[in-house]
């Protein structure tokens, strides 16, 4: 015999709606909390969940276009390379890493998306170190970028092969979006890059911009859905003109 949880009378008829993702947003969290505390509703959800889980199987099968896989794998492979460059521990939870690297990267290596930003940062560091060791020119040409984020300061440090966007006081991307870097050449649409990033808790970031910026008019940053986009879906939040 299961004992109903608190507020069971209020929520008892919402199980079906919950399983079908039909709860209004303002009720979703309330029901989820109730579910954790109510063995009766949890049992109902498990029983009826079998039917709800079967619903997508009723759909006639339609093959996805091959180009979709190409797009997805392109992002995945580039991010896998960045993660590999950052080291195996880059996507570990911060608590595990804190003891090893406390005080350096702190606790912001929480998600692969952040880890990717970190990977870009590490690549910057690696590139700089390599440049210094090779006796190359460590002094970048710096331009101040325009940003729509109030109070933020962003600059672009331009080097031959490893330019860097440096942000301070920059807000994190809204919702579950992510910042994406674009290359703008004269008379052409912005070209996507695989550089996806977020900010640290203190609003700072150092982001590697791949390749030479010769012939590039501006480096742009927009916020995009996770995974980035092929074309900007939002106005630039950062515009760094190279001239």
């Amino acid at each position: 015999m299961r004992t109903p949880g608190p507020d069971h009378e209020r929520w008892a008829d919402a199980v079906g709606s919950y399983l079908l993702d039909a709860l209004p947003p303002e009720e979703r969290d309330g029901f989820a909390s109730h579910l954790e505390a109510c063995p009766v509703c949890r049992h109902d959800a498990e029983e009826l969940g079998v039917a709800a889980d079967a619903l997508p199987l009723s759909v006639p099968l339609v093959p996805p276009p091959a180009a979709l896989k190409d797009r997805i794998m392109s992002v995945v492979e580039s991010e896998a390379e960045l993660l590999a460059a950052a080291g195996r521990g880059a996507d570990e939870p911060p608590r595990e890493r804190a003891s090893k690297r406390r005080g350096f990267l702190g606790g912001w290596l929480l998600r692969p998306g952040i880890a990717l930003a970190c990977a870009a940062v590490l690549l910057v560091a690696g590139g700089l170190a390599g440049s210094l060791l090779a006796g190359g020119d460590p002094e970048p040409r710096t331009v101040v970028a325009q940003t729509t984020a109030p109070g933020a300061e962003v600059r672009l440090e331009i080097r031959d092969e490893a330019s860097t966007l440096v942000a301070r006081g920059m807000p994190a991307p809204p919702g579950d979006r992510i910042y994406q870097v674009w290359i703008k050449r004269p008379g052409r649409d912005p070209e996507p890059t695989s550089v996806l990033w977020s900010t640290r808790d203190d609003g700072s970031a150092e982001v590697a911009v791949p390749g030479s910026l010769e012939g590039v008019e501006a480096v742009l940053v927009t916020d995009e859905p996770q995974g980035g986009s092929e074309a900007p879906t939002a106005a630039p939040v950062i515009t760094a003109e190279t001239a």
Partner: protein
Amino acid sequence: MQLVRRGNAPAFEVIYERHSQAAFSLAYRMAGTRGVAEDVVQDAFLSIWRSGARYERTRGSVRTWVLGIVHHRAIDALRRSFVHERRRASDEGIEERLETGERTDVEAARHEEASTVRTALGHLPSEQSQVIELAYFGGFTHTEIAAMLDTPVGTVKGRMRLGLEKMRHALGTGQVSLG
């Protein structure tokens, strides 16, 4: 999934190959256009790539997990879109879209389990299958459905539950593999 969690791209590709057709089919069914369906699937799979650690084997198969993510993303897209606003304003438009979704896929392969589930869904009283379709495939909340059908919210919730109970009974244990 262990390898995906470690950032192994070939392992992720296997997951994509195995589940992308079901994912795209669900997204297409819900969104009604290939373009939006592609966006939904891309968004969902990149989310999976970046959050593989969130999969818990004890809570169901990988396919159920993947399709659940696709469903959430498709609902987000529907609720954001102008299309959803337009459909919300016209009950006839909704019915037309749902029927069209059936007709446009006549050339697609039909899996046996799909037939079983469709039969179970088809045997429900129409007022129960209607609210389930509007909610699951249409992305509408029970409040929106109640307003569309001019029916009390409690009645809509009751029909959803009853419909799922009958489907569960019709499917029976083990008749439809979700793995």
